[in-house]
């Protein structure tokens, strides 16, 4: 079974702190994604990456950055956490199959609270 593991289930950070959310997948997937989920807004794509050291902005990249130094690991960085970044963060991964489309596998989520 594909496993996507996020480093923390719950995290509380102070405003202005630099925050790292880590995600590791064990199935050699090329694609990795970071979403945030807020009530009534659904999953919104922050950043995604289709290869090592490659990254693409999603729909709401402001205030975030990412790092993908190894294929299995995709990190989300909040350079200076703010209260409006309090949310559930979800990491996902998927294969890239030319001419096709494959499902995404999600981690269990990290509920981040910025105080």
């Amino acid at each position, binding site marked *: 079974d594909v496993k996507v593991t996020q480093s923390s289930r719950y995290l509380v950070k102070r405003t202005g702190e630099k925050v790292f959310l880590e995600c590791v997948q064990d199935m050699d997937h090329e694609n990795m994604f970071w979403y945030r989920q807020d009530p*009534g807004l659904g999953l919104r794509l922050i950043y995604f990456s289709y290869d090592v050291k490659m990254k*693409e902005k999603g729909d709401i990249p402001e205030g975030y950055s990412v790092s993908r130094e190894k294929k299995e690991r995709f990190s989300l960085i909040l350079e200076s956490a703010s209260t409006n970044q309090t949310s559930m963060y979800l990491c*996902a991964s998927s294969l890239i199959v030319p001419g096709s489309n494959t499902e*995404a596998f999600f981690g269990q*989520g990290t509920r981040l609270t910025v105080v």
Partner: protein
Amino acid sequence: SQKIEQNSEALNIQEGKTATLTCNYTNYSPAYLQWYRQDPGRGPVFLLLIRENEKEKRKERLKVTFDTTLKQSLFHITASQPADSATYLCALDMTMDSSYKLIFGSGTRLLVRP
């Protein structure tokens, strides 16, 4: 930009009935559409994928339709059970040269009463 709409109001049905959830999209023509289930406090789990050239897809009690003219997908759960209670999300691919990204709707919560 692309927009995906799912009914934000919860769907409340009696056990044994068929649940029908709707996903509408605009400003895009996806080649694929996916449906996921999400339980509280958990990440979404993939259920079904349907291609643009497929009208219908079935998996056990689940059925998905994809109407590219109407820009709509319907997700049906027949003989619904209380264990089917969850939030259901539709997702569209946006394929680019060397990658694709998945864009999700906000989901519809389904409640199945015993």
